[in-house]
Each structure stands twice: as structure tokens, then as C-alpha cells.
């Protein structure tokens, strides 16, 4: 059996989306997965709390979203591609979402890139 992940080699600043992580973040990801129409995005934006009610989020998960705590979401099993659909509704595009996870301002982040216009 060729194991593909080595639990003894944690990759710094990384959270591998394994089965147990997927189970833990299931409600968060389901919320993300729902945001694939203008209507859904508009209702979420208009009333976050009642939109969240449709999914079985725990109080902790709701708080992560209310606090825009994206790195907390990732640690809690949000898959980056589904999380991205959530953060986009709040204006956090992929690179803003990334900068927040890394604890930088968007401008700081852009300064670390070669071509800051290629967004």
C-alpha cells in the first residue's frame, strides 16, 4: 500500500483536506456549494443569518463566518474552493482571501508578487 500522506511531516501553514477535515467542515462547504446562482448570493448577502439557517452550521461555524475568520474556516475543514465562494460574496476575491489567511494586507501581499497587475 503506497500511503500518500505522511502524518509525521506536517507542512507548515498548511491544512490538508482529508476525509476527517471534509467531515468536520461539511456544513461550511455545503453553504459554499450553494452559492452558485445570483439569487443565492443575493439572499446570503441580504441576510446572512437566515441564509446560514438553511445549513446545519454549528454556532462555532456561524461565528467564523460572521467574523470573516477565513483562516479559522480553513482550520475547521472549509475547502479553499468552497470557502472562496463564501468570501467572494463579501468582496474577498481569491488573493484577498489568501492575504488574510497569511496575515497580510492585500497591498502587502501584492508587493511580494512579480506582476501586481495580473490579478
Amino acid at each position: 500500500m503506497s500511503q500518500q500522506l505522511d502524518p509525521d511531516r506536517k507542512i507548515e501553514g498548511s491544512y490538508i483536506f482529508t476525509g476527517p477535515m471534509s467531515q468536520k467542515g461539511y456544513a461550511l462547504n455545503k453553504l459554499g456549494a450553494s452559492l452558485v446562482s445570483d439569487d443565492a448570493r443575493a439572499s446570503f448577502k441580504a441576510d446572512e443569518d437566515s441564509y446560514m439557517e438553511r445549513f446545519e452550521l454549528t454556532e462555532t461555524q456561524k461565528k467564523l463566518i460572521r467574523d470573516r475568520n477565513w483562516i479559522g474556516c480553513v482550520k475547521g475543514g472549509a475547502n479553499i474552493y468552497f470557502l472562496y465562494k463564501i468570501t467572494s460574496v463579501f468582496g474577498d476575491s481569491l488573493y484577498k482571501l489568501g492575504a488574510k489567511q497569511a496575515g497580510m494586507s492585500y497591498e502587502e501581499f501584492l508587493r511580494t508578487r512579480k506582476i501586481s497587475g495580473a490579478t
Partner: protein
Amino acid sequence: MGKIVAGIGTSHVPSIGVAYDKGQQKSEAWSPLFDAYEPVQKWLSEIKPDVAIITYNDHGCDFFFDKYPTFAIGAADKYPIGDEGFGMRQLPPVPGDTAFSWHLINELVYNEFDITVCQELKMEHGFLVPMNLCFSQEPSWPLKFVPLAVNVIQHPLPTAARCFKLGRAIRNAVEDYNDDFTVAIFGTGGMSHQLSGERFGYLNSEFDEWFLDQIEGDPSALISMTHQELMERAGVEAVELIMWLVMRGAMSDQVERIHRNYYVPMTTGMGLITLENVVP
């Protein structure tokens, strides 16, 4: 017998789709990327493959973790455009080749690949960005497509070796098909990048250049690489590079490289390689 006439490895970064839709192909930021694909478009318009098999991954447009497949293949006449969470791109539906899809699926399943068969699939950036780069949709798409979606986001992912073997089986299925039928096969995604976690923005261009060397000359080190090693060296989301091995497995052992490009403006190494079989 059918023939694979082109093997293409290319990144599928979403911002490329945005730049394409905004017509920024000639902008300073984007021309180093788009310019590199002009000779590829020309080459492909000369080869004129009947079908392109595009190995890509869904990013939450078609699949959710309620039922997540390892390998999914489309079998439809038409694939509509999907909304990934950011609105619908204004692109015409993608034409499929149902007869070839079913042939391919039959051969793969009977050769012990456990395919999820999709008569409905919506297309998203993982699939559309490579199409936009390599073909013109004016006045209409010049060929038909077979989408092949690979799980590269929820572990356990298929091993690199399994992806390579899938490519081999695809080649056999193509060779078992109608005379004069020609296929281009794409491996998409990558190259080095990390989107999740505090390590966001991690890049490894040295790794990317080495990967491009190996995929051309000798993929054996890539085939035996674990997901752990790939993620350590190239970033967590770069593990999707295993999809390039599906393409490579479908090519002959020796290949001739036609084009190669590498550009890394932002968070992702944007790589391109095109290959032709060296007939023994």
C-alpha cells in the same frame, strides 16, 4: 485505428479566464502568457484533432462532497457553462462527442477503471481556461470535447501512478476506435501554488521547470512521487499536477516537445508544454 496526435500540459488558473473575458490578452501583465499560446493555436488548427479529452478538476461547480468521484467522464452532446460562484461566463455550450465518450467509458470500465459516468456536466474554469487558451470559439468550437474530471481536492486522491495508468488505458481505447480518428489530450492545473493556509502564496519555480523537464523527458520520478512530496515541494493545491500524468500516460514513451512556456506573475506557476508522439 484512432490516434493521439497531441499531448498538452497547461495551467488552468481562474484569473486567466477573467483576463480572457476582459480582452486583456495583449496587456503587459497578460501578454507573456497569451502570446505563448498563439503558436499552439496555430499548431492545433493544422493538426485538427477530432476530439480533445480535457483532464481537469471540478472546483465546486458540478460536484459536492455528498458524492465525490475519483474519476468522472462526460457522455453528452453538449456541456452547458456553469456558475462557479462568481456568475456565468458568456461562452457558448461546449460540444461533446457522445459516441466516442461511450466507447472510451466502456473500454476504461472493462479495463478496471471505476468511472463515474456523467450525462450532465457543467463546465467551469478548470475546463474552460485551457480551451480558451488553445482554441478559438469563433465562429464556433473547431472540435468536440470529452471532459475527464479528477478528484484532486478531497484526499485520498488517486495516486500519480494511477493517473499515468489511466492515460495508458485512454491511449489503448483511442487506438481501438475508428480509423483516422484523432485526439488531443490535455492535462491541466498547477503548476506550483498554494491557496489555503498561512502558507498562501508559496511558489517554487525551480520545481516547476524541473517538472516540465521530467514530463517531457522521463516522467518516472513524477509517477512515483507521493502527494505529500508534491505538496511539500510545490504547494498544497499544486497536487493537481497529477493530472498532467494522465496526459503523459496517453503519449508514447518518447515524445517530441513542440512548445514550452513558463510565466509566474502572481501566485501560480503558469506552465505550458505540448508534445507529439515519437512513433517507434
